[in-house]
């Protein structure tokens, strides 16, 4: 029988290591990888899938023309995924976005094609309709307290019906050339052609420089606040890898048709929404509501307002996707956007969002969307049957989420 070891009052635990110790960066790549397993897991998956299809298609999938194609073909899904991941982080879902894509495209087409309004009137009208639809959903979810699943399921039917009504059940086409440029236009030749587009390379270089500078500034700020940062060589390596990927991408685009306008739109959206979710009070409140609604409410978060704007934003982005899609398909069809909601939802979940809310990132959803895009595209190049494509996509969604669940479990349960 041992006696009591320390019969004194409780000792405070030893103070945390002095700030100097924290400032020393970690170069432990293994630790970094494990820490970011959830995120890095999908990056690895994307790289593997890209490599796999590069091999399977004898490099065709990485050809300049095809890379341009992927961008053009899947941009609207990625735009939808941005809004969708925010809605999912907030603990909701939006099943209506496919119908909203159709409706906004239809409104635009009626104005521009049937009534001969200028192209920008069509775009503004589409965006206004999208915002109105979002406000409609937001009202029912936030203020009437109806679950988003029901509200947007109703919206899916409702807005599909309205689309048919607006279009009088027929397809409209074609759009004027200016409108088509949204999805099919390129910025090229601005610096003259040398067999490739120097302007695209320049933009690529600017992007890399921006990434490096902002990364470096964040790093400096973190050091100033005495936080742990990665070691300098690792930082340089990270910038170099990302820079190389961007420049490769730009190089390929430059050797095709130049910089797609839609890619610029997408890049701006990713940048803006990435910052919105990570750095703004609004973004924080979305995570807080999804993580624990009651706790958020009792912390002074205006839950209804945040929920309302979440859906308004989704409606807006659905309209952006609607404009891009109508521009790309050069018209409006009653069945446009069918099943888009499922692709957007799948992108968000593959990208690490949690069904229960509170977890997810815009960048993750983009990677998730790209995984789907590269796979679909690769299988199309290989001439794989539509039925098989669908099976594979379904399995990838399942495996991605299963992997995520497995990771969470391995990360350790509470004591």
């Amino acid at each position, binding site marked *: *029988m*041992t*006696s*009591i*070891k*320390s*019969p*004194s*009052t*409780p000792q*405070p*635990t030893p*103070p*945390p290591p002095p700030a100097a110790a924290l400032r020393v960066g970690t170069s432990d790549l293994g630790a970094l990888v494990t820490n970011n397993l959830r995120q890095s897991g999908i990056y690895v998956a994307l790289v593997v899938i890209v490599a796999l299809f590069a091999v399977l298609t004898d490099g065709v999938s990485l050809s300049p023309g095809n890379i341009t194609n992927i961008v053009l073909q899947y941009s609207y899904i990625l735009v939808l995924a941005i809004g969708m991941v925010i809605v999912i982080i907030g603990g909701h879902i939006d099943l209506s976005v496919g119908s909203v894509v159709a409706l906004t495209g239809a409104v635009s087409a009626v104005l521009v094609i049937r009534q001969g309004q200028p192209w920008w009137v069509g775009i503004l009208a589409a965006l206004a309709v999208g915002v109105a639809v979002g406000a409609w959903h937001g009202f029912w979810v936030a203020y009437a307290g109806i679950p988003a699943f029901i509200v947007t399921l109703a919206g899916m039917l409702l807005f599909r019906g309205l689309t048919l009504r607006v279009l009088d059940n027929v397809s409209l086409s074609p759009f004027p050339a200016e409108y088509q440029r949204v999805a099919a236009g390129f910025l090229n030749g601005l610096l003259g052609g040398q067999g490739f587009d120097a302007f695209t390379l320049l933009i690529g270089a600017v992007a890399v420089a921006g990434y490096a500078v902002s990364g470096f500034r964040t790093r400096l*700020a*973190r050091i*100033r*606040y005495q*936080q742990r940062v990665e070691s300098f060589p690792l930082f340089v390596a990270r910038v170099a890898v990302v820079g190389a990927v961007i420049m490769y991408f730009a190089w390929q685009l430059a050797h095709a048709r130049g910089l797609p306008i839609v890619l610029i739109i997408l890049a701006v959206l990713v940048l803006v929404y990435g910052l919105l979710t*990570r*750095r*703004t*009070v*609004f973004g*924080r*409140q979305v*995570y*807080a509501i999804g*993580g*624990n609604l*009651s*706790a*958020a*409410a*009792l*912390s*002074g*978060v*205006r839950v209804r307002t945040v929920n309302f704007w979440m859906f308004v934003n989704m409606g807006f982005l659905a309209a952006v996707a609607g404009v891009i899609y109508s521009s790309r398909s050069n018209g409006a069809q009653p069945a446009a956007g069918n099943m888009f909601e499922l692709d957007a939802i799948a992108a968000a979940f593959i990208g690490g969002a*949690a069904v229960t809310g*509170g*977890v997810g990132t815009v960048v993750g959803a983009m990677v998730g969307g790209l995984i789907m895009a590269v796979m679909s595209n690769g299988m199309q190049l290989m001439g794989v049957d539509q039925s098989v494509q669908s099976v594979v996509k379904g399995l990838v969604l399942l495996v991605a989420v299963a992997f995520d669940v497995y990771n969470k479990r391995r*990360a*350790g349960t*509470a*004591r």
Partner: protein
Amino acid sequence: MDTILEMRRITKTFSGVTALADVSLAVRRGEIHAICGENGAGKSTLMKVLSGVHPSGSYDGEILLDGSPVHFRGIRDSEARGIVIIHQELALVPYLSIAENLFLGNERRGRAGLIDWNRTNAEAADLLASVGLHENPVTPVIQLGVGKQQLVEIAKALSKKVRLLILDEPTAALNDVDSAHLLDLLRRLREQGITCIMISHKLNEITAVADSTTVIRDGRTVETLDMTSGAVTQERIIRGMVGRDLESFYPDRVSVPGAEVLRIEDWSVRHPTQDRMVVEGAALAVRAGEVVGIAGLMGAGRTELAMSVFGRSYGRDIRGRLFVHGRQTTADTVAEAIDRGIAYVTEDRKRFGLNLIDDVRRNVSAAGLGRLSRLGWVNGNEEIKVAEASRREMNIKAPSVMAQVGKLSGGNQQKVVLSKWLFTDPDVLILDEPTRGIDVGAKFEIYTIINRLVAAGKAVIVISSELPELLGMCDRIYTLAAGRITGEVPVGEATQENLMELMTKDREIVG
């Protein structure tokens, strides 16, 4: 000494945090062996190691059963050797019958693999009789009280031919009669030769039934006390658990109340869905540098009163006057209440206080993001600095401010919630059951923090079910009964008896 179980030098770490360090435990055959320690001391982890929830290989050290080493890879392995664990949260399926629950996963089958219901119900009846539960085996479990459900769990263990029964806080949810019944049953099982390990916080029960008591603190075995002599007192056990005597339990404080900070008058709240008043005509006031207690039984309306004041977050049809710093004002939303300098620390931190899947940092800043942001942009570095400062000042035991809050112990979670509200720089803090479900050491720390706040001129309202806590911490205590304030007692005149009398004061007498 015939030892049935020996755990030698068990060490278990969770992602770098040591939960158990070199814990040893020896249990004699046929005894009731109590394990006590503060929350987070490692008791439950130790039992999970023993029952195979943490499989062999995930910890260091060895387990000897009947003198020979065992390696459990899962709970099935340990059950096969007669070790059954009954968790604090009962694992019964509410809509299945008692008999179905008893043989769940272990069904009594007849020919063709179909369930033999006659045999099932007959064996169930025998098992129920052996634990002294007189219920029809076909009764759905949901119709039983918690005490009887606990007995069903024990009967279920008996059906598995249990030799070593582990009970985690068996009486935590039971009333006194059910608890006494359960302890009697444990004594009877002991006579039948079943060894019992009982984790408990209720020291009076331990002194009543245990033959030995092992005290664990901070993941280490402190001592094993032989209880058979009857010389070991509750105070003796507490000393082992906390490493100090009970006298210093409530830290001293010099009370210098200043100006009035918060006052409510004629405050009434209607139930959100039912047509009845939850709070009626309540009036109370708190001054700077003062701790005011609210005592009341369950359902007296304590939490409801507090939440209705805090931005009308409970109830409807709220009427009354609210004064902050002597000036009449309103706090119709939580955001407004925060602006007025009111903070409410919930009694249920997991449901209402924390975003468990998020990290310490974002939880600390959740209510005060306005202070960290400009034009809607959050300064993430400043946020980390703030969270880091809280971690140091509050002594939050977490690997870093990026650690997930859900993985911290109850006491540390409570400190995170407190940090969150302190960051809003409130003038008055309403603490609803601030020490519920946290261990003795963390309680002491919370009390110390409260004293520090009061010394810094904050006003504090403490709602608590534990009268000793109110008597130890407060300057004045209001009593609440059926939604009405029935008394206001300076702490010098308050005793548990007169408070209890006011808390049970009948409605008619009051009004």
